[in-house]
């Protein structure tokens, strides 16, 4: 029990930043906008979150600052792709380059500092319950925020008028526009939401997961989050499955190494990627999910 519980708790921590970032990007993409700048937005969230958390002594303020930083980056992206109809793929990649540079500049004087504060445990004493108490209630608020985001987004996209409209915009911005839907305003909100989530995911890294700042600390998690959105065929619950699959295999391969079976470490490190491909192929064969929003990545400008 002890070992399995420990593994599951580690998997939850490892999957959380992937899940938060993926859920945000999922909403952005559902509105028809492809933002490849997740890695850059995450880094900005991480550095801003840490700097704020360190200066104010509050993890919660840090997380909020991370969200704001992610949104600011997303706003820049939105200005380019919505405001002046710039190519989305290239802008997203440029956003990542900018994020790497800016986060490095902001964090230059914060390397090697330790954050004293721990994220507040919101369920406090419940974690001491027997059996699954620790597994269910011992996490920081980022973990529960991730769960809440999945539930909220799933509900929003399928059960609310605004969510259905957002999906309609992603499927066909021309039809939606003809029906009088404010296509660009909805997309702006979706992009900002994606940025907020990426920022929060980054802040989770620098405030809770490994509470310090080093340059480039996201180590490619933004890209994995993008892949998870595709893996999920743009469905929130599947994004959760994808994040946990990836995080789970990552942790599993580390655990297996600890038992010393002598399998090449390169093969072990490839497993999360291979597993994701294999599972995607299997679920693609028995296609039950949705496919990409029809107007994903297509530039839109309202003709009058």
């Amino acid at each position: 029990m002890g070992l399995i519980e420990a593994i599951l708790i580690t998997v939850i921590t490892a999957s959380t930043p992937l899940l938060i970032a993926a859920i945000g990007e999922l909403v952005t993409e559902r509105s028809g906008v492809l933002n490849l700048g997740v890695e850059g937005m995450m880094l900005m969230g991480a550095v801003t979150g840490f700097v704020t958390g360190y200066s104010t002594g509050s993890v919660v303020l840090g997380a909020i600052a991370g969200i704001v930083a992610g949104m600011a980056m997303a706003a820049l992206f939105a200005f380019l792709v919505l405001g002046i109809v710039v190519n989305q793929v290239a802008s997203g990649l440029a956003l990542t380059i900018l994020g790497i540079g800016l986060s490095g500049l902001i964090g230059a004087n914060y390397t090697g500092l330790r954050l004293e504060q721990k994220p507040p445990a919101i369920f406090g004493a419940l974690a001491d319950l027997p059996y699954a108490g620790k597994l269910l209630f011992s996490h920081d608020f980022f973990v529960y925020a991730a769960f809440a985001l999945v539930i909220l987004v799933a509900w929003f996209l399928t059960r609310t008028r605004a969510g259905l409209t957002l999906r309609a915009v992603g499927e066909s911005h021309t039809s939606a526009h003809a029906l009088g839907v404010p296509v660009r305003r909805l997309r702006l909100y979706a992009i900002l939401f994606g940025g907020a989530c990426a920022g929060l995911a980054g802040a989770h890294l620098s405030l809770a997961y490994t509470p310090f700042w080093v340059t480039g600390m996201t180590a490619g998690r933004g890209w994995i989050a993008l892949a998870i959105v595709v893996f999920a065929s743009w469905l929130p619950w599947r994004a959760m499955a994808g994040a946990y699959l990836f995080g789970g295999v990552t942790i599993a391969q580390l655990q297996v190494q600890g038992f010393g079976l002598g399998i090449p470490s390169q093969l072990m490190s490839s497993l999360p990627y291979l597993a994701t491909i294999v599972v995607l192929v299997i679920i693609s064969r028995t296609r039950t999910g949705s496919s990409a929003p029809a107007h994903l990545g297509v530039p839109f400008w309202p003709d009058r």
Partner: protein
Amino acid sequence: MSLKNLTFAAMTAAFVGIAGAGVAEAQDKLKVGFVYVGPVGDFGWSYQHDQGRKAVEAAFPGKVETTFVENVPEGPDAERVIETLAKSGHKLIFTTSFGFMEPTLKVAKRYPNVMFEHATGYKRDKNVATYSGRFYEGRYIIGQIAAKMSKSGTVGYIASFPIPEVVSGINAFMLGAQSVKPDMKIKVIWVSSWFDPGKEADAAKALISQGADVLSQHTDSPAAMQEAEKAGVKAFGQSSDMVKFGPKAQLTSIVDDWGPYYIKRVKAALDGTWKSEDFWGGLKDGDVVMAPYANMPDDVKAMAKATEDKLRSGAMHAFTCPVVDQAGKTIECKGGKNLDDGQVLGMNFYVKGIDDKLPQ
């Protein structure tokens, strides 16, 4: 599209004049260049080299000017960066990653009057010296401490890539541990990265969950130290003193201190006595520094200090013969009483007592 090139040409003409006035200044100072493989903010390898650079600046006020280029990819870019440094008047250039070996040698041939120093390599030239640190000495000490401090008899080791330096570190650690407790168990996890704090933390958690109660790492970030602190187990830091991240967890840290060597070499260059040589400094030279021993009983502290003194004076060597590999084969003793430097530098086997297989 040729329009653009044309404009570039025009701008070139316009700017040549401006730059002539701005950049060219009389230089009496010795210009010293540093090439880093990672960002200076990595809080690990490159960060420590940059601390060394700062020590040089502080030691020779007004006499030297230092320049660094960070995050230089190993390959063609390195050659260009090194060449640009040489061309722009840098007379002493430190290239601080193994992958810079060939680029350094290539550029050195073209700039015979520039002095080059390549870290962790083994090829030299008239104007290319090599230097490195005997970090395995520190690993022997922490192996002994780990054996004393571990209650479960199992230590965890977070490793980056199976290169000789990391392998010799694991072996030295194990030999140290076995000198105290012959049946010591070690669990090694390779994270296949120098630099992924999240993954290092995950590896630390995996090791702790499997019963390791002392952690050692050969990766750069303080993530594992923080996990140890959180879980209430002990750990050793790497590269820099990480006690801040584990005030109750850190037993000691193996600190890379490049300052003394850099100061020595810059001084030689200033005095005109610089020669190409191979320098492999350890505890004796102050390249490898043990952070204050902490969170351990006094007898363990005394043992660690005694070992440190013996390694420093040369009375003891981490790889004292006979060294036996996993298969039970005794390694040829090329250095007389211990393995010679070449054997340590290229170490490619696990010593007896490590149950794992070395990833090839």
